[in-house]
């Protein structure tokens, strides 16, 4: 566990002054204001480079071999970060991290809004192709996936509630359950895609092209959520979170619930409405 509490870096002038007066640098008579800074780290940079390489993997899959391990390596280093309290000046009663998360989710809802609009447009234009595809889609499988996501959303709020009352055993149980359900959802989706491809629904079809783009982007969000949750559990194992410091869990929760919300809409639009 690394809890770094660095004092404010001194300017060269101050160091020179104190040396000239025969004092040790940093011990200048009066009490200094200590501010808490995170230790300088290149971990976010490593994650950034890895993520870039991973996205390049869409064009040249070879770069995934370097990209994914780099992302994981950087994330593992980030598990050592202490939580930082940030105090905004503008609208001081709002937390800047939470506000940022909501702004990000606002951009995400526009992104998924466009995808869903495209899906509906294709559906209106080609009713016969979508009716045929609807026969092939497995409603029981999709219902199972929906249930798994809803239970996992419930698990996250119960985990957060447990951490807010310092009940760590219950927290870990719910969070591990969420991890399991996230992976289960991805497995269900992988199985579904595999079956659909064998039924002749491929990315070249009219239905396939919108179906795979929409559910694929949602699946990518679940995948990122699973990686984030893995990091969160690892950080919690190191004792980062407590009843007075659990914003990190809440931010993850907001993201995870949003992914759940998107799936609730997709489930209705794709599987339920004929």
């Amino acid at each position, binding site marked *: 566990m690394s809890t770094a509490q660095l004092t404010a870096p001194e300017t060269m002038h101050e160091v020179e002054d104190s040396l000239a007066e025969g004092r040790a640098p940093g011990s200048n008579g009066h009490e200094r204001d200590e501010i808490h800074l995170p230790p300088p780290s290149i971990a976010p940079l490593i994650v950034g480079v890895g993520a870039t390489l991973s996205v390049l993997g869409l064009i040249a899959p070879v770069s995934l071999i370097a990209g994914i391990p780099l992302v*994981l390596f950087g994330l593992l280093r980030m598990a050592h970060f202490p939580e930082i309290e940030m105090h905004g000046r503008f609208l001081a009663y709002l937390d800047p991290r939470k506000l940022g998360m909501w702004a990000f989710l606002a951009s995400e809802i526009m992104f998924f809004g466009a995808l869903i609009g495209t899906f509906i447009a294709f559906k209106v234009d080609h009713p016969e192709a979508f009716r045929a595809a609807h026969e092939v889609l497995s409603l029981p499988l999709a219902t199972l996936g929906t249930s798994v996501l809803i239970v996992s959303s419930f698990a996250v709020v119960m985990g957060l509630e447990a951490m*807010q009352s310092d009940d760590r055993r219950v927290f870990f149980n719910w969070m591990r359950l969420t991890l399991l359900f996230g992976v289960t959802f991805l497995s269900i989706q992988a199985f579904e895609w595999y079956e659909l491809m064998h039924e002749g629904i491929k990315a070249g079809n009219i239905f396939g092209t919108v179906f795979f783009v929409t559910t694929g982007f949602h699946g990518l969000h679940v995948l990122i959520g699973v990686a984030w949750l893995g990091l969160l559990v690892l950080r919690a194992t190191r*004792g980062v979170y407590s009843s007075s410091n659990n914003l990190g869990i809440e931010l993850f929760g907001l993201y995870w619930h949003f992914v759940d919300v998107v799936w609730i809409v997709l489930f209705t639009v794709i599987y339920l409405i004929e």
Partner: protein
Amino acid sequence: MDSDTVLLATLWVTAGVFVGGVVTPLIVARKRVNEWLATLAGVVLGGVGGVFLLVPLWLLLRLRPDREDSGPAWQRDAISLGEALAETGSGSPAGALAALRANFWPRARSKGHSHRLTYLGVFLALAVITGVEVLLTVVDVPFAVTGPLVGLSTGKVMLVALYFMHLRYDSRWYAAVFASALPFALLASVILALS
């Protein structure tokens, strides 16, 4: 090699590397093992053999002795579900219920109001609405189901946003930031859907 084989091979390697890289460090977090080496092993073995090589690795790592505890006391207090079951007398329904409660029902907060029952209620409501939606689709009903389905899903979305995402309890500014994007999202979907 045809393109399908390449795609499947890429998917296999990517999924294996991902699962190995995420799960392995979690397993060795409290073991006396170098976590970097363990993660590297997870990434390599996952990429090559997927779960077939990862599961033996994980079992092997689980057998390693635990790290000596230098951490805070709560880490030593944590017990697993199996231990809790043994403690409370497994076999009897009352014991199982007690173990379930000890492992999954959060303690009441020392200060402030706990939302445990609210969350449970919202979860049950979500489950019931999902059941009704599926029934409406499967059973032949004498009216158009599109309207009711859209209404029920909107209800579900509202429940998740208001209670699970805390919009009901939090500052209205967060809701305002999120809601400000809704008109644009709606505009984008409607324009695309009508084009």
